[in-house]
């Protein structure tokens, strides 16, 4: 089963495009004929892609250098495992290299690469922790589910309250507790800075589905961080 079959009710469609080893081939083949882009300036990224397509391995290495840190961060956030993240980096770039001839340049190379990497990471996660994959089909509930239970200022700022390593531990522990589907949207959108549209494209979700997950991810993270960061009367803010 595809690791993102959980999305089918939310999107109203299956995801055959990113479930198999030839994912990128199918992704591009569903997009139809490439429209003429003669008048548009070619980005540096696309110049590298075109050179790599022609067999310039050095150009592909430049693409690896450009995006390996991002792919590693995304993979580590999704898998929560260092070895899996390393495997995902290698597998995603190799899959991208193998499928470059089928990349028809209708999206950014990076968005296409992220799509491959996310799918690799979700497959790793499913193999390792199948019980953690939860249903993400529910609508956003506004009263019971999303309304914060406790409202308190964060003061002083968390950066002042904790050392860098303590803060890192808190943030890692907190985001690990989110369902993978929420975590993935949050990481792509808020950590890596993809647009809502790019995130939707990378995950094969609708824009409303991305927004719905993003809202829930943000609110759940806020709620969980609140346990550490809320202002305490006469206290030091620690649990």
């Amino acid at each position, binding site marked *: 089963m595809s690791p993102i079959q959980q999305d089918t009710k939310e999107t109203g469609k299956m995801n055959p495009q990113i479930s198999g080893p030839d994912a990128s081939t199918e992704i591009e083949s569903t997009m139809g004929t490439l429209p003429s882009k003669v008048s548009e300036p070619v980005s540096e990224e696309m110049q590298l892609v075109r050179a790599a397509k022609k067999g310039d391995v050095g150009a592909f290495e430049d693409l690896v250098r450009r995006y390996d840190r991002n792919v590693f961060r995304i993979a580590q956030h999704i898998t929560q495992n260092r070895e899996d993240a390393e495997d995902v980096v290698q597998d995603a770039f*190799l899959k991208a290299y193998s499928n470059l001839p089928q990349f028809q340049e209708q999206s950014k190379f990076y968005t296409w690469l992220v799509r491959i990497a996310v799918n690799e990471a979700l497959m790793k996660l499913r193999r390792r922790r199948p019980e953690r994959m939860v249903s993400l089909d529910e609508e956003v509930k506004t009263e019971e589910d999303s309304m914060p239970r406790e409202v308190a200022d964060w003061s002083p700022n968390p950066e002042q309250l904790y050392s860098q390593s303590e803060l890192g531990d808190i943030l890692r522990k907190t985001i690990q507790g989110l369902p993978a589907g929420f975590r993935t949207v949050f990481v792509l959108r808020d950590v890596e800075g993809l647009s809502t549209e790019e995130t939707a494209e990378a995950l094969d979700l609708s824009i409303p589905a991305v927004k719905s997950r993003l809202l829930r991810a943000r609110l759940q993270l806020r709620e969980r961080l609140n346990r550490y960061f809320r202002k305490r009367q006469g206290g030091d803010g620690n649990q």
Partner: protein
Amino acid sequence: MTCSEFLKELTDYLDDALDERMRADLEDHLAWCHNCYVVCDTTKKTIEIYRDQQLYELPEDLRGRLRSAIMQKCAEKKKAGQHDA
């Protein structure tokens, strides 16, 4: 506007993706509803802190090893004729 209605629009508000009228309605709500103001502020801080901390940096030595492994396999694929440029 109720607090629930505010919450539904929070993501678009933080992403500056609302039209002018809706934005004005939300800001009017924020001006008198302290709870929603705090939720909005701390949600914004949540995003900023994750964005700023960059939790999983790729160490340079590991980065070099991964890149070498990737490029070696790419070269092998090219040599084997699997990469049909």
